[in-house]
């Protein structure tokens, strides 16, 4: 088994050799390491992408907009990923944005995961039938486990989710009531000696 450290170093060097700057190569190294750590085939897709990149041109999204339309070529997931990390604080106000024709969408996944941590919000990444929920760079939930991930996503949507509970108020109340069964009723004499006792509220 390759260690994550080996993965990061080799990806960084390979990315530089594929034509990215050292700074971008560092970002790709970190991201593919993360992808493999979460159990997604980052190395496999990066390898395919770099092989393809030698033969084919890809377009770059520089400034991310609400709708990012392709002019024919599919978009580079790495440039989009790095720019996403850089611009995430500006674009979270968009609530969601879409990308048409994204090459190797799996390669964007770890960048989105890192973005989720930067802004402290969960993100929903969906394309075709695939959905990935990115949880603050702590975990990734997906309906795509162990399936072949496509090398081209025709329509990608990334939504910034509000920080909300994913349970109902009633679920919480019921659980809280149960938790209260661990509390002990205090006597009056104990209340009199508790912190703040004896002071006036206006002192």
């Amino acid at each position, binding site marked *: 088994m390759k260690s994550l*450290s080996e993965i990061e170093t080799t990806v960084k060097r390979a990315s530089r050799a594929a034509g990215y700057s050292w700074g971008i190569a*560092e970002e790709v190294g970190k991201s593919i390491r993360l992808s493999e750590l979460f159990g997604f085939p980052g190395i496999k897709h990066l390898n395919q992408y770099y092989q393809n990149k030698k033969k084919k041109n890809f377009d770059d999204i520089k400034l991310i907009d609400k709708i990012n339309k392709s002019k024919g070529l599919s978009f580079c997931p790495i440039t989009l990923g790095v720019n996403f990390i*850089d611009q995430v604080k500006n674009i979270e106000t968009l609530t969601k944005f879409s990308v048409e024709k994204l090459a190797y969408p799996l390669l964007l996944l770890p960048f989105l995961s890192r973005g989720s941590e930067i802004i402290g919000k969960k993100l929903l990444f969906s394309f075709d039938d695939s959905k990935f929920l990115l949880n603050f760079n702590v975990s990734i939930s997906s309906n795509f486990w162990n399936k072949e991930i496509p090398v081209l996503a025709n329509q990608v949507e990334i939504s910034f989710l509000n920080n909300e509970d994913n349970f109902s108020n009633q679920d919480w109340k019921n659980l809280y009531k149960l938790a209260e069964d661990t509390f002990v009723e205090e006597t009056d004499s104990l209340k009199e000696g508790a912190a703040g006792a004896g002071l006036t509220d206006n002192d």
Partner: protein
Amino acid sequence: MNVELRDPNIIMKLSRLGSFHQSRLSFLRSFLNEFKDWDYRRDLFDLDKDGFGTAVYSFKKKDRIYSLICYANKINDDERSDRVIATKWDAAFTLHDGVPLKEDIERLRNEVPKQEVGRLSYKELTLSRANKSVRVFDHVVESLSNGLQPNLDLLEKVGYLYRTTAVYGSGKFGLADRFRIKNREEINGPFRLEMMLVYLVRQFTFDQVNHVAKNRNPKSAVKLDPKICRNLGIGNSTGLGMAPFIVNHPTLLNNWILSREVALKKIREIKIAETQDISLFQECVKNSLKNITSWNTENEYQLKKIKLLLKDVRKFIHFLENEFDFKKDYPFNEIYLWLEKETCEECIEYIVSIMMEPFGEIVQPLISQMSSEEEKYFNIPTERNVEDLKKILENKYSDILKIDFNKKDSNQKFWFISKNKEEPRLANRFEESGADLEQPLAIARDIKKLYERLLSLKNNLKINQFLIDNSDLRHVVRRAFIIENFPYSEIQDNTIGENIVPIDMLRLKLSFFGALKFDPRSDKWLRICMFQGAPLPNELKDYDEQWVYKTFS
């Protein structure tokens, strides 16, 4: 009194960093301190009469066990090389997490001796190999087998029976990644498991030499005197492989240097020194003269430095004994100011290290702050603007911005990774090919380039916009925002200039390891000695913390 931390623009110059010495903060000393109450055992010692075979040593505390597995192999003299191109070694080692099963020992027997071309698993933590100092090893075997202790003059000249040529950890060749073990309390300090490996290898060398001597002449052989063992360490040959590490780990570098600087600041702020602390300091300074006079090298650059160091330490001792009054307030601050004025860089840093000896209560808490969660500082704060970045560069890289990189001399070298051994190398860009594959280690040049590019831009331009069209400088933008909060994270010198002395970079790192007796063999590699004078494993429970200054060699 508040003493300011020393200026990074002075301390982070290569000549100063290359004058650092081991101290109580050094990793091999903090390793011994951490593991002193662990149970040490030799679990397996299955060597043939010539000393070839397998051995296992362990440290155990509660449920945690670390085991060193040693494979000693027969090699021909013409196969023995300290260079990284070697493919065979006298012995190869790995530190295994837990108790190795028979299957582990067999699995590793096929991999560990192959080193870089072998594959380890997440159950192994560190990996190394070592070669005998044949001259010393054979002499010791010969002497012991004849019932005699070896010639101390010869041992003093060399200082070890074996020298390692690399110690790997942190995920190399399939070893466990640091994240798997980083929360273990006992390894809350850099390179602790690398230090454990070297320390246990040292014991293996003594056991092996005794074993061979005993087999050669069972009736009259004697064991190597423990006092002699204590004064032998493990040698190490180190090349440029180590140099990029300190550039590639800026927050870690900061935390090492900052710990040293905070220790010095706190010691200088002591108003009244206690008698026993004064005595210990003076004793260590005097005893340390032996470390300097027994420091052997044929390298002219180092010889000059040692000569100057010896002269200045003697001058300092004279000053302490004849002119200085420890009763005055803030005595260590006075001493430090005197050193700055009267002695060379090598001597200043030498005495700074010794100043820490009496003050374990200051040094000890700093040791746990010498690691770094580097991931936390990786993201660039892209919401900041060009004005912020320019100010950081002006404040934190002022000397670097003065370098003229249009001059050939300032731009003469380039760092690259050798295709043959995947190791870093340094070459002349005007004489060798490959500069187009340069590694991102020319930080000073790229910082200057970044600054020049920023000058023509609007101050309020956001960094995320700047990066869109300037991705070639992204690696230094990241570093600039790191140095803003980590003042000692950057070497304040040109690492590609004509006059760069790469061994300064090696010495910095090796001093934090706790190495002694730097012996440069060129400007690109050196030999050192580790654990010379250190207690033996069975003495760890009660040992003298100032053992470094009590070696007789």
